[in-house]
């Protein structure tokens, strides 16, 4: 059992959850994730370790409630317990001094990019981050990014905050302004990562994306998380989750992630009354 120390919404449907997990806090490196099972009937879902606190022995998860399990998780409050948390899983981000490194996060992807941005900075890179959201309230971790990055650009799809437009537009602007860019990390929805990959491909900028296939065990035992990279099959949970953006077959990933779409809708509908109550409770209790 893993205790929730603190939990708060930081954007609509996006909750920051701090969990007591001292071993994982000690071991985790940027880019790694945990697999969480909320309760006895629950499924196992992967979530990136966004941050950790060694003294407190805690890890931070930032969770977007898009389906049943993530919403159930987001309904938990400080003092509640999560049944299983296993990790740190996956390979750590490959960090080196590239020169200028741009970390791009779309939506909750910013939370996944954040620890790697920190590590890039610590390795001596000039770090720029571009964080995007649908509108102002969906922009997350701007303050945190500001603390670790040399420059931060915010974009919103509807122009309600920061630069109007997509993160790709901002990246293209930087390139057009002849800014020297040696490395790009892009994490967010698949269409966004695909679009970034297309931009940087033209300029041969080394680009890494973090893939989010459906997982079960997270240890390489089931092969459910397989993706196609460089025409070869990889197991994202052990070979990744980060891969060369220019070699990833995004279309296959997108299709495979739709495997259980009908079940997911069903689950959500069936649970919706229950979860609305729980979410209300969470909102009320902060």
């Amino acid at each position, binding site marked *: 059992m893993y205790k929730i120390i603190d939990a708060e919404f930081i954007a609509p449907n996006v909750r920051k959850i701090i969990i007591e997990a001292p*071993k*994982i806090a000690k*071991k985790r490196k940027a880019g790694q994730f945990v697999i969480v*099972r909320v309760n006895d*009937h*629950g*499924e*196992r879902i992967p979530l990136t370790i966004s941050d950790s606190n060694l003294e407190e022995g805690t890890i931070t998860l930032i969770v977007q409630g898009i389906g*049943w*399990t993530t919403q159930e998780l987001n309904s938990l409050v400080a003092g509640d317990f999560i*049944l*299983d*948390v*296993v*990790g*740190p*899983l996956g390979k750590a981000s490959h960090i080196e001094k590239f020169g200028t490194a741009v970390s791009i996060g779309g939506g909750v992807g910013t939370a996944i990019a954040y620890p790697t941005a920190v590590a890039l900075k610590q390795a001596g890179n000039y770090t720029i981050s571009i964080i995007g959201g649908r509108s102002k309230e969906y922009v997350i971790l701007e303050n945190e990014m500001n603390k670790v990055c040399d420059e931060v650009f915010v974009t919103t799809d509807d122009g309600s905050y920061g630069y109007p437009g997509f993160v790709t537009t901002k990246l293209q602007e930087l390139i057009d302004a002849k800014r020297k860019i040696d490395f790009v990390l892009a994490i967010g929805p698949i269409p966004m990562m695909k679009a970034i990959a297309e931009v940087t491909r033209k300029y041969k900028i080394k680009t890494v994306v973090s893939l989010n296939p459906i997982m*079960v*065990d997270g*240890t*390489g*035992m*089931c*092969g*459910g998380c*397989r*993706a*196609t990279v460089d025409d070869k*099959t990889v197991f994202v949970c*052990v070979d990744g989750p980060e891969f060369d953006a220019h070699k990833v077959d995004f*279309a*296959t990933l997108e*299709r*495979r992630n*739709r*495997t*259980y779409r*009908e*079940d*997911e809708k*069903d*689950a959500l509908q*069936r649970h919706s009354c229950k979860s609305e109550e729980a979410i209300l409770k969470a909102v009320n209790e902060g």
Partner: protein
Amino acid sequence: MPKLSNKERMKIQRQAMPEQESAVRRNNFSEVNLGFTEELARMEAERCIQCPKPTCIEGCPVGVKIKDFIALVAEGEYLKAADKIKEDNMLPAICGRVCPQEEQCEAKCVVGKKGESVAIGRLERFVADFERQTVGIREATLKPKSGKKVAIVGSGPAGLGCAGDLIQMGHDVTVFEALHDLGGVLIYGIPEFRLPKDIVKAEVESLKKLGVDFQTNAVIGLTDTVDELMSDGYDAVFIAVGAGLPYFLNIKGENYNGVYSANEFLTRVNLMKAYKFPDYDTPVFHVKGKNVAVFGGGNTAMDAVRTAKRLGAKNAYIIYRRSDAEMPARKEEVHHAKDEGIEFLFLANPLEFLGDSDGWLTSVRLQKMELGEPDTSGRRKPIPIQGSEYILDIDMAVIAIGNGSNPIIQKTTPDLQYTKWGNIVVDENTMRTPKKGVFAGGDIVTGGATVILAMGAGRKAAAAINEFLNSSN
């Protein structure tokens, strides 16, 4: 019963295993075999002629004293029979259900030379079930505490076998398990209808009672490395992580939606209980009314195809590139599968999966094969027949062609010795690796094998670890 002559004994028919009707059981996940009654067990035990040189024992990988335990069954001394088995086999309720007896003890049984062999496995199961259901698994006596600590990595039969012996020898034992539940393949792979999970749980519980500490959600290599365990105060480490890396066919279209490894399909259904979706949250492909093909001919393939049938598959096929005779699965499982309406397509090899524009599997292109000369494994090698290709419509495919070794330990413990397939190299008699205090056994050493061999390896390692600990004061 009056004493029978050998001739009379040989006349008794082998007792059939009571089982659920095939028409009923293919719609449920309850155990197929119902087990011997006392009467059937006594009758079966009377078939044993108590050979002066019992060859059955030679066939048993751990040397269970078969003749002696069967004599005790015949006398109605079932608990004593259980004790006798447990001198050599710690998990009789499990092995009685899943051992390939027809290739082991029963293949060597003298009675079997003329007629049908004594049903040793069924008797083993009866004895173990009798104990569990009447008095519960009885606690072993423990030696005084040695003050030594052993870490066991993996809670499959190798890990459990090792833990059971070491705790009795007086050592502190912690088992680290990557998953959230204990038992390895016994819990995530072999389905409920063949091995009820309560039986595995009872074995784990009995070890807990003896004082074995189980830590789930601990992936050794990531959560802690082997070296960290050693520096955390463990005096020895036993690595029993199994063969958990599914092989794929490496043919085109294998990443279409609807193509699973057997590990994923069985894990979703068994460990995550997808057969109870939506009561449990984990979904699995909607098999109902669909056509499912399972590739392979081993126990895993049989488990997958029978699971698909139970989930409502219209047609459930086994597609195997050799013939009936070469299938490595337990004979009983093949027999059960046939009764349940599984269709076997022998001498067929998949060349490519085909799918629709949304990425869903629609069919497989197969090629017919014929058998040539025996290969290195002694089985006749399948050779493709030119121009024999055809297409079979399927909605779901399960690949069950075996497992390689999981790379996590190898990547994080480079100072062990590995084969080119990633198996850990050990001394055959002591399960010792070249790294001081580190031992390994089970499928990670042998490649995918059997429950009894894994358990046997665990116990061999326990003896060697005990010796190592006692000599390194």
